[in-house]
Structures are given as structure tokens and as C-alpha cells.
């Protein structure tokens, strides 16, 4: 975690939001907040853009769809020349056409969902940097229980005392600067 942060701790999410609104109004950039549960509407005070993970998911889904169709058309339909002489191995299965598109729908759908879901979650973990066994960097051992934290990058703001004053005024029960 970044050092030299102004840390303000609150015990009530409403108080935190109130303080955030004030800080945002004054044009002070917020570094991050740490809360035990997601607080809706917090993004507007922190200039958080809507994540593009949804777009990523869509692309993964398309990837899954094309992978599925290529696989099935290539394998059962003999539509692809994957380097082997597949054409000669088209197999008559119950008199169905080799490219039985209707039969391909269920698997195409499932692979779309599979790729979209897993691709998105893996990307989420990559961009957030969470991984199994990672040691959490905590500012307070209750920030995942009932303490709500706002941090401001002390390097990016001047007049630290004034900011701390505002935070205390707005209800922070503890305000400090990390080393």
C-alpha cells in the first residue's frame, strides 16, 4: 500500500458519505475508501469510472462463442481443415447433416457463458491484484467489520492540517497520517 496517506476513520457509512461529499466539494482528491460492504453512490465522490469489465466479459463471451462454433463445425462438420484430412472423415451420424447448426446451439451457448464468466472473474483478479494467499494491507483491523475508512494521498494535497480538520469536523473518530 502507498505510504504517506491521510487516513480518516468513521463508524457510520452515512457519516463517511457526508465527509466524502464535503471533501469532493472542496476539490480534494480521494485516494481510496475502505468499507466493510459496498456503499452505493460512493463512486461519484471518488471519480471512479464505471469499470470496463463488462465489455471484457462481452468480448470473452464472443470468444467462447466463436471457439465453440469453430470446434463443432470443424470437428463434426468437417468445415475446417485443421491440418488433418478432416473432410474425408465426415461421419454420418443418424443421417443428420454434417453441419447440424441447430445441434450446435446448446454447446455454443454454454461455452459463451463459460468464457464470459471465467474470463471476467480472472480479469477482475488480475486488475485488482488479489490472489490466493495474498497478505491484506490493512489500515485498521476492523475495516472489514464495522469501520469505514477514507484515505487521501498526502503527496497530492497541501494544507494537511486543514483537511484533517474538515475530516474531524465531519465525524471521523480518528484522523492520522501513515508513515
Amino acid at each position, binding site marked *: 500500500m502507498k505510504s504517506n496517506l491521510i487516513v480518516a476513520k468513521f463508524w457510520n457509512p452515512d457519516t463517511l458519505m457526508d465527509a466524502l461529499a464535503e471533501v469532493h466539494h472542496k476539490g480534494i482528491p480521494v485516494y481510496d475508501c*475502505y468499507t466493510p460492504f459496498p456503499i452505493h453512490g460512493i463512486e461519484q465522490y471518488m471519480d471512479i469510472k464505471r469499470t470496463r469489465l463488462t465489455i471484457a466479459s462481452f468480448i470473452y463471451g464472443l470468444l467462447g462463442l466463436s471457439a465453440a462454433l469453430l470446434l463443432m463445425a470443424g470437428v463434426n462438420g468437417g468445415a475446417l481443415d485443421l491440418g488433418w484430412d478432416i473432410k474425408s472423415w465426415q461421419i454420418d451420424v443418424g443421417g443428420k447433416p454434417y453441419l447440424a447448426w441447430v445441434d450446435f446451439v446448446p454447446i455454443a451457448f454454454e461455452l459463451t457463458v*463459460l468464457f464470459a464468466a471465467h474470463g471476467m472473474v480472472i480479469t477482475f483478479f488480475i486488475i485488482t491484484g488479489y490472489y490466493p494467499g495474498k497478505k491484506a494491507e490493512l489500515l485498521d483491523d476492523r475495516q472489514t467489520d464495522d469501520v469505514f475508512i477514507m484515505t487521501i494521498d498526502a503527496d497530492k494535497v497541501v494544507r494537511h492540517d486543514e483537511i484533517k480538520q474538515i475530516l474531524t469536523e465531519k465525524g471521523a473518530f480518528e484522523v492520522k497520517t501513515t508513515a
Partner: protein
Amino acid sequence: MHVEAQVRAKLLTNTEQYSQITDDIARPIEAAPNKEWLFWTTISAIVMTVCCFGLIGYLLWEGIGVWGLNTEVGWGFDITNFVFWVGIGHAGTLISAVLLLFRQTWRNSINRSAEAMTIFAVLCAAIFPGIHAGRTWDLIWFAPIPNTRGTLWANFNSPLLWDVFAITTYLTVSLVFWYLGMIPDFATLRDRFTRKGKDVAAGIYGALSFGWEGSARNWSRYEIISLILAGLCTPLVLSVHSIVSMDFATSVVPGWHTTIFPPYFVAGAIFSGFGMVQTLLIVMRRIYKLENYITMEHMENMAKVVIATGTTVGLAYMTEFFVAWYSGSFFERYVFINRAFGDYAWAYWIMFSCNVLSPQLFWSKKIRTSMTATFILSIFVNIGMWFERFVIIVTSLHHDYVPARWANYTPTWVEFGIFLGTFGLFFTCFFLFSKFLPVINMFEVKTLLHRPKKPSGIPEGKKDEAVHAH
């Protein structure tokens, strides 16, 4: 201004502080296992080991012949149990995903255990397609991987292969969805154990928590991907049971070859799943004293879903009969008459009374709010839905086209044993889950708490009163 979560006091009773929620839900995890839990977990584990794993071993050693199947009835308990367990799994996804999309906050306190139920049920289900095959060890041939057998891959026309893809996708996506939901709660437990100086537990939950620290930027992403996952799970859950139903619907067997199957199976799956959720939650809220989180409102809502889906299933039963008559198909008509009045009529009428008639009792508020009555009715739902699959599979196969090959099917003790064994597996998993994992989604329930009281050990801030005033 900011948006507050919609609050309905009924969904969370007698709770004033965030830490109180953590305390209540972490209590079973921290406490030493009580005797009751140890007893039932041991029983389940024994049933799982002996009946499930032991008998599967016997089956693999001897061959499918130890079951009561025959040339005519090629599927019996195996596929019945498969469809039964998959169906049970569906309510979990429905509660966690579909109700999330519909912004039904009442799901917040039951989604975790419902999702756990999904995963354990799908695990139980996945056993059966595996062991029902004559050569289980060759099932790798289902996988579409290049191989040394030339270009002989898998048959993408086969509904059984669709099943493999559907179940794999469903199991893994549900698992990810479930696990993702637990990460913040693992972090809560990690920090709680750290505070209490329990380093081993803190280390385990810490490793599981992926280093979660509750950053608002990541919460923002987290919420979006949860929503997208829910959006993906919704069509997924519908597709999975539709595909399971296509095992039957795409065949030529009279009684299976029916276009009504996909919606009918999905309704049945939701129905049976909610029945199972009721059964489990009634027990769990009693044992773990979670009445403040799983309230009467929850139980009533679920009873209403059971009436709706039970009636839908009943409508499907009658539609089947109508279509059999209306189609003019000789075989179709015979199969349905045979279903209701033939050798397996007893199974048909057990199914009909458990699925269509008994849930109608939930129209009475008295029954809906009586936990004993709800528990009994939920068991009936489970029984009825098991028989539904049995009736569909066995009665259609045992008398089909050629009367020279009509036969009855009598399951053997091995089939009963393996079915019992999957209950052992299911409950072992569920008991372990309820002891070692947070059974209620702590962070989501916390969003339901309105106007929290100041926690202990925290100095007074200047603004507290002012905030409470608005």
C-alpha cells in the same frame, strides 16, 4: 445524494450494530463444534463413505449389472437421481442470481446457503452420469480434445454431450459466483481471528480471502461483476435444465419426445429446489439461532414460490395428457394412460399428490407460518419431485413401441444405497459448510441495517448526532 439500500425491517430483526452481524454469523465458526453437529456430521460422513463411495466401488468392480436395469429400461435410479439433484441445485442459483437482478433484498440472508446447496447438489448430480456409464474410466472421451484416434472426437449432436458442457459450466460458474461472494466475508473472518490472536484460523481465512481489504474502487468493480455474473447465471440456470430435459425431449421414446419438457423441467427444478431450501433453512435457522436473519418473511416468500411453481408443474402434467390425446399418436396416448393407470401408477399418483396437491396447503397463512407444517410439506415436495423424474424415465421406457420388449424395472439395494449415499455426501458438505464458512452473507446483510448504533471501543466523533437527524 447517495443512494441508500432499500430497507425493510422485517428482513433483519433485533440487530443494531454491524459488529453484531459479524458476531452472530461468526459465532458457529468460532465455537467448538457442538455434540449435535459432531453427531450428524459423523453420521453423514459414514453414509457418504459407505453408501456412496463404497457402493460405487462395488459397482465399478462388478459392473452395471448389480443395478436392476435391463435391456428395456436402460436408465432408472441413476438418471432419476441425476435430474433430481440438478433440479435441487437450481433454486440456489435462482435465489442468488435471479433475485439479485430483480433487486429482491430478501435474498441477501439466504443466498449464501442456497448457493452452497446448489454446488453440493450439482456435485451429487455429477456423480450419476459418471457412474451410470458402463465404462466410467473411459469418460474422458466426452472431452473434445485432439487424440490419437484420428479425427474421432465427440458427437456434438448428442444431448448427453450437451449435458457435459452444461453441467461443467454450471458447476464452475456457480462455484466462482459463490466463492466471489465469500471473499469479503473471509476477509472479515481473517481480521476477526487476527484480533483474537487465533493465527492459524486467521492464516487460513487470510489465504482464502485473496488479500481483500474492502477498497471502494474494488467494491465498485466487485459489484458490477457480481451483477454480470448474476446476469450470466440466469440464462445459464434456465439453459441447464432445458438441456437436461433435452436428453429426453430429443429422443424418439414416446413420453419423452415432448416439446413441453424444457419449461416444464425448469419449473420443476425451481419447485424442487425451493422445497430443499425450505427444508435446510428451517433446520439451520433453528440450530444456529438465525431467526433474526432468516425471518418469517423469508419462509413465507419461499412458500409462495412453491405454490406458484407447484401449480405450474401441475399444469404441465395435465398439458401432457391433453397433448397425448390431441396428437392422435397411438404410442403417446398409450404411454400416458399406462403412466397413470399402469404398473407404475402408484409412482405417478405419489408424484401428483406431492407436487400438485400438497403445495396448495400453502395458500393458508397459518400453514405458511408454521415451521413444522412447512417442513413436512417441503419434504413432500422433495419426494414428489424425485418421483416425477422416476415416472418420466421409467414409465416411458418400460412400455414403449414394441410390445415384445416390454419389461418392468425393480431397483436393487445397490441403487437405493448409492442414492442414500449421495444424501450423505450432500449433508457432509453442507454440515462442513455451515460450520466452517459464513452461512449468511455478512456484507450484504450489513447493507440492510439502517441507522447503526455506535460500536464499542470507538471514540465519539463530532458529527454523529447530526447525521442521525436527517
